């Protein structure tokens, strides 16, 4: 019997491992998910299987079965309905449920201990409980922020309160285990649970909305730790291994995500806001940045892409690499157009010179007037080192010096990514209203470098 159970857990541990491995390569990711899911089903089945020779009361079985069924159906239901763009908050939500589960486990298990329980087990219980609690409220808050239901609140006092509570969380158990606290263990548990729930909130509150994905990954890692500690309680290998895998992978993933966004984890957690490199204080624009990988990701989904080149393309001498990107996209059956604005660059025909040098077929060059009326047909517009020529102020802002100049209506497309080095302005020296729009993100960096990175990423998909 036990050997069968052991074997079952072994296989499911291994499938988690393989699942994670596969999920980290684009080609096998979907397969990896299936493998991990099968491993999970196996682990659950094996566990339920133990009921048959342990004489579990029927009511317990019924409740368990019902709960599993209900959870599964609801989970499937929710995941089917939510829009693709809302994925991060969904993940956060599901992470909260995992944290909640760990929290309850810790409470129930802890309150039913007998006095003989060793200190090691108690420590394990406390850690499992508090990590679960932090993951629970933290994830709920992250969910709220992403859903736009909770705004960023960033005050010094908040950060300090958070730190003191963290101190408390560390101090209380130490005092308890050194016998300085004359309370019951279950009291300690409740106390810890409560404080941790609060800490989870304070932890996430000051962090900026744009950084939420990183935080979610971190919370996910914490849930993993909670799972592992729960596993220690039950001496259950698959829980320990699964938990540690997630804990370790989640932590690394958090770091990787920070790197991809060019952020430091510490700064994210401290809630410092990101600014463009050259962004001078004068410009108080609220902009959205995007990473090369996200750009690549979105390009990979796009069916029609427009490239709007500008003076920056010439400065970066990125014409050759730009043509490489075009070829890559075309090989993936994505239609690519170049839209040339009459005054892009610094001399008439500036863009023509560049694109001819890169041997770009005249057939894919479009004139502004040709396409301006159906810019919405482009899933994605890449603005490479152009600025004034896509500035909607030319259409809307009568006081702007560029008012009246015809522009390429990039803002009408589904999604705009603007590549530039910093927040400096174009030739006309005016603020670009495009950057404020919801469908526009800025990709900072020299256009040549950015394009190269996008190509590298895109090749992986």
């Amino acid at each position, binding site marked *: 019997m036990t050997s069968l159970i052991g074997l079952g857990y072994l296989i499911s541990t291994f499938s988690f491992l393989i699942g994670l491995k596969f*999920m980290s390569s684009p080609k096998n990711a979907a397969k990896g998910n299936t493998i991990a899911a099968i491993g999970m089903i196996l682990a659950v089945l094996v566990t339920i299987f133990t009921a048959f020779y342990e004489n579990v009361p029927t009511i317990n079985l019924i409740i368990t079965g019902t709960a599993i069924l209900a959870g599964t159906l609801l989970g499937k239901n929710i995941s089917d309905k939510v829009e693709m763009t809302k994925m991060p908050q969904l993940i956060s939500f599901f992470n909260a449920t995992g944290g909640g589960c760990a929290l309850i486990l810790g409470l129930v298990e802890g309150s039913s201990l007998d006095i003989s329980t060793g200190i090691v087990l108690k420590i394990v219980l406390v850690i499992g409980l508090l990590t679960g609690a932090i993951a629970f409220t933290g994830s709920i808050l992250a969910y709220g922020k992403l859903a736009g239901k909770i705004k960023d609140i960033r005050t010094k006092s908040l950060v300090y309160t958070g730190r003191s509570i963290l101190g408390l969380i560390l101090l209380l158990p130490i005092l308890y285990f050194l016998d300085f606290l004359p309370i019951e263990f279950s009291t300690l548990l409740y106390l810890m649970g409560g404080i941790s729930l609060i800490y989870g909130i304070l932890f996430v509150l000051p962090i900026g909305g744009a950084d939420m994905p990183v935080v979610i990954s971190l919370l996910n890692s914490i849930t993993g730790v909670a799972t592992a500690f729960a596993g220690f309680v039950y001496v259950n290998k698959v829980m320990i291994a699964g938990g540690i895998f997630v804990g370790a992978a989640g932590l690394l*993933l958090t770091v990787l995500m920070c790197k991809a966004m060019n952020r430091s984890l510490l700064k994210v957690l401290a809630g410092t806001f990101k600014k463009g490199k050259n962004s001078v204080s004068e410009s108080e624009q609220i902009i959205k940045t995007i990473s090369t990988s996200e750009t*690549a990701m979105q390009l990979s989904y796009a069916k029609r892409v427009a490239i709007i080149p500008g003076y920056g393309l010439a400065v970066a001498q990125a014409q050759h690499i730009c043509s490489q990107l075009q070829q890559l996209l075309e090989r993936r059956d994505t239609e690519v157009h170049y839209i040339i604005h009459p005054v892009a660059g610094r001399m008439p025909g500036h863009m023509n010179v560049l694109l001819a040098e890169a041997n770009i077929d005249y057939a894919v060059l479009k004139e502004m007037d040709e396409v301006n009326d159906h810019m919405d047909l482009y899933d994605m517009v890449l603005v490479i080192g152009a600025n004034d020529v896509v500035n909607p102020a030319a259409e809307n802002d009568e006081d702007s010096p560029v008012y009246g100049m015809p522009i390429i209506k990039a803002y009408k497309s589904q999604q705009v990514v603007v590549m530039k080095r910093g927040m400096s302005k174009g030739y006309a020296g005016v603020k670009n209203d495009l950057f404020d729009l919801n469908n526009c993100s800025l990709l900072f960096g020299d256009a040549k470098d950015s394009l190269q990175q996008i190509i590298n990423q895109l090749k992986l998909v």
Partner: protein
Amino acid sequence: MEFISTNLENIYFLIFSIFIGIEVISNVPAILHTPLMSGANAISGVIMVGAIILMFNIEPTDYLNLTLGGIAVFLGALNISGGFFTTGRMLKMFKTKTSK
């Protein structure tokens, strides 16, 4: 010290697991960050196994704990099912486009 020699096996297990957890995803391309996060989240739902074990050991008359345990199992199941299905949906997009 003694702790080490008695738990040597476990320590190997722990270190190896951590190492594997890190190693296994160390080369994930940035475009997979979100799906991977989602997948890892689903795996952490294995906590439900603990919840089930808990349920099996609760006195059938201890309604409070039965309820709590039931909720725990429910939450775990939600995490697992939601997690895997969500991941699956995200990853489906990777298949629609034939690369190169």
